[in-house]
């Protein structure tokens, strides 16, 4: 019976067990769950162990958006259960596939329902209408579910309207493997009660009763007490009987193995320029002068986990592909929100988004990729945003705000009407420092003040138009910021690409040697040879196509690497950069 029970729906908690920011410890058929409600109302039912070292997540911390493990502070996102941050390696973005096992959750009849391998939807329970029910306190019983069900058939209780009476007439309306429906009648008073039995383990159960009528105040307390007393007596009887027979062995839950790739060491995921996801434009609105906001919802299922700093490729109806940063705060996983600025010299990207794409349209997007990861071990984090450069930094600032980590978001814009995503900015409170209507010289002076007091342990993130970004990086260097503390993301690469060189590329792991002629990129040549190379912007700005250089001198033409990384010569963006030496050996 217990085998078949795995495919059924069972109650695992009362809705009122999921208190604000609490994590409830549930169990079904030997398997433990961490059950928590996010601030957006979503009920998460997860395997009760952190994927890292097996610590119960039911002792973790629910911050309303994410669940944080107590042992090493790993953070898992609401809804997707994907890991968004590993504090031991603050400079790395966690491999996206570190995702906890989730189980379906349905809230109905005042209870939270789940199933290990559900067959079909949660069936309707006859006699219980949603809305005016009373869920009783769960009564744990140390006995197998079938023994409890057997006893419940003889359960006697008074109807709500005659709770102090005696001798109500009880009818069994229905009885199944894991539930008994009873009707109690005393004169005119009548109450229908369904008593579900949650099989916690082979020898443990919880009785979860639901009555078809609610009550208020003292009457409600009387009803709850009435059932509490009678069900507790029933429990004592069942437990006495169960103690006389040998108890069945506890059910050993089987934990899924993690993927072989994760068992090694988390590495970067490799994807080509693919658009695996389909989303609908749930909302399109003008969030600032010249900037449209888009809320993208999945057509089915849930969106993959994103981290602050991540971007998606949006494949547009006109065939263009553009990258947009996700502006969401942590745990906001039901949709992706992006901001698109209408570029005056648009080649069709932003123009298409502004003029053609409408609410209800379907778009193809890539999975989120994070080449601009946020460290959270900084003593103080400074964000410097110029114009639409706000988008990745907004996601980052919301993450730090959620964790109470010290930060400032300096937002440079032409005027008040150019500040995008006012609701999100408001959430940041005093950390937001707008700088409006400044000339380039004034901007420089302001930047100099902002980055004036560098101390070891601080980090600076910059995103904005090229000239401003260059200025900010230069000023930071002058003020003593080391390259390792300055992180930046360009919108696009405005360098003039010189593709006149020709050279040889040896791919060490693939054991092939290729000729790269003038006019073709390393990436194009690799793809022509059937080698799958991940890419996104394909202009040297986003960092997706990075490769490790084993030998040879790269000719960097990208804007992703910082000066120290360029000098080191160990990384190359294969979409634009080339070789100064006659030969390059790459770790591909």
């Amino acid at each position: 019976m217990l085998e078949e029970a795995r495919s059924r729906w069972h109650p695992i908690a009362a809705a009122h067990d999921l208190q604000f920011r609490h994590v409830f410890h549930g169990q079904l058929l030997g398997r433990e769950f961490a059950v928590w409600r996010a601030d957006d109302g979503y009920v998460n039912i997860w395997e009760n162990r952190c994927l890292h070292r097996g610590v119960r997540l039911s002792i973790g911390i629910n911050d309303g958006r994410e669940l944080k493990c107590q042992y090493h502070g790993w953070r898992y996102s609401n809804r997707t259960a994907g890991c968004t941050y590993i504090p031991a390696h603050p400079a790395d973005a966690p491999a996206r596939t570190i995702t906890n096992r989730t189980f379906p959750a349905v809230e109905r009849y005042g209870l939270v329902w789940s199933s290990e391998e559900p067959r079909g939807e949660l069936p309707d329970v006859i006699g219980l209408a949603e809305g005016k029910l009373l869920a009783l306190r769960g009564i744990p019983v140390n006995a197998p579910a079938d023994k409890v069900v057997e006893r419940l058939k003889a359960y006697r209780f008074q109807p709500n309207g005659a709770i102090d009476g005696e001798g109500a007439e009880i009818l069994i309306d229905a009885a199944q493997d894991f539930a008994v429906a009873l009707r109690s009648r005393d004169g005119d008073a009548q109450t229908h009660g369904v008593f579900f039995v949650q099989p916690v383990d082979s020898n443990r159960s919880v009785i979860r009763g639901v009555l078809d009528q609610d009550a208020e105040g003292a009457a409600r307390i009387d009803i709850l007490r009435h059932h509490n007393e009678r069900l507790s007596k029933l429990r004592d009887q069942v437990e006495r009987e169960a103690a006389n027979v040998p108890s069945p062995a506890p059910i050993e839950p089987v934990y899924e193995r993690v993927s072989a790739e994760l068992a090694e060491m988390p590495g970067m995921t490799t994807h080509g320029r693919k658009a695996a996801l389909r989303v609908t434009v749930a909302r399109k609105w003008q969030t600032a002068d010249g900037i449209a906001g888009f809320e993208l919802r999945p057509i089915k299922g849930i969106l993959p986990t994103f981290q602050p700093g991540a971007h998606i490729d949006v494949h547009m109806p006109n065939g263009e592909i553009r990258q947009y940063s996700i502006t969401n705060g942590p745990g906001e996983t039901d949709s992706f929100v992006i901001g698109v600025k209408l570029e005056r010299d648009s080649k069709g990207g932003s123009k298409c988004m502004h003029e053609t794409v409408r609410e209800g349209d379907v778009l193809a997007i890539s999975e989120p990729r994070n080449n601009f990861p946020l460290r959270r071990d900084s003593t103080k984090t400074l964000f410097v945003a110029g114009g639409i450069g706000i988008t990745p930094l907004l996601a980052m600032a919301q993450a730090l705000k959620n964790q109470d980590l010290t930060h400032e978001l300096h937002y440079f814009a032409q005027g008040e009407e150019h500040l995008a995503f006012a609701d999100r900015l408001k959430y940041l409170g005093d950390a937001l420092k707008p700088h409006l209507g400044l000339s380039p010289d004034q901007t420089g002076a302001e930047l100099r003040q902002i980055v004036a007091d560098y101390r070891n342990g601080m980090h600076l993130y910059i995103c904005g138009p090229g000239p401003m970004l260059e200025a900010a990086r230069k000023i930071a260097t002058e003020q003593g910021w080391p390259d390792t503390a300055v992180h930046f993301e360009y919108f696009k690469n405005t360098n003039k690409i010189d593709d006149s060189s020709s050279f040889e590329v040896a791919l060490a792991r693939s054991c092939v040697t290729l000729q790269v002629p003038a006019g073709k990129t390393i990436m194009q040549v690799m793809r022509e040879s059937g080698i799958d190379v991940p890419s996104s912007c394909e202009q040297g700005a986003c960092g997706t196509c990075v490769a490790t250089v084993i030998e040879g001198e790269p000719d960097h033409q990208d804007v992703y690497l910082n000066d120290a990384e360029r000098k080191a010569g160990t990384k190359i963006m294969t979409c634009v950069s080339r070789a100064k030496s006659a030969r390059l050996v790459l770790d591909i």
Partner: protein
Amino acid sequence: MTKCLDPVILNLWHPIGAIAEAVPGAVQDTVLLEERLSFALNADGEPVVWRSHPDVQGPARVPAADRLPARSTYGYVWTSLGSPPAELFLIPEYEEPDRRKLNAATFGVNVSAPRAIENFLDMGHFPYVHTDILGVEPHTEVKEYDVEISVDRDEILATRCRFFQPMASTASDGGADVDYVYRVPHPYCSVLYKSSPVDEARRDVIAVFLQPVDQEHVRAHMLLCVLDEDNEDKVIKRFQQTIFGQDKPILENQVPKRLPLDPRAETPIRADKSAIAYRRWLSQKGITYGVIPVAA
């Protein structure tokens, strides 16, 4: 649960009690590998260990057949249910005369011995479990360190370990990186060396010796061998007991309680290099007790 059938574990020396807490002549009962044992110090102060028996009330009258190997080392009574090696692993610092040697505590913990060893080797949890003592957010990074399995000494050695500590010592007012070296010279014992606040050239030694009560329960004996002439015993002990008291609820909430040796059972990161080496080492030794071996 069946009693221990693991020959490697049966043939090891295991700690069963602190000498400092034994009253000469008084018999103490304990459990090792699911066997009930008794021990006492004889008139010469030497430990005598035997399988518990209602007729045997003291060390003088233990029948030879019930006697178990016994030794007194590093301040503890050690015994074995099999044929133990002649020597126990070495902690040379224990012989240095100017060190304070204390049993900081003996704690019962509902977890397997290997899970407790991994916790002892782990630095990433300092800011979360030992907040404001051994670590503090946002200083959460575990920097690169080196791990080797020493073949000739048959032990794991992790060196160049550094971690930011908010109160590196009583003498410093700001945080600083503290250096650690970890050794695992015995499947259920580990020794750490930590920068001494008193003497830059030397290191404090802290060891954990786990007494496996059964596969999922241990008694953890904590040895301190430190350079400290100022603080009272109880102050030094209280510090370690605070630390251990913070680890205990985490350890008791790890599932499964036995350590899974299958590399795909859990998700390692670079910070777990020493734990990965430890799991491999246990696998290579063919250990089955207190672990979930890799399925054949």
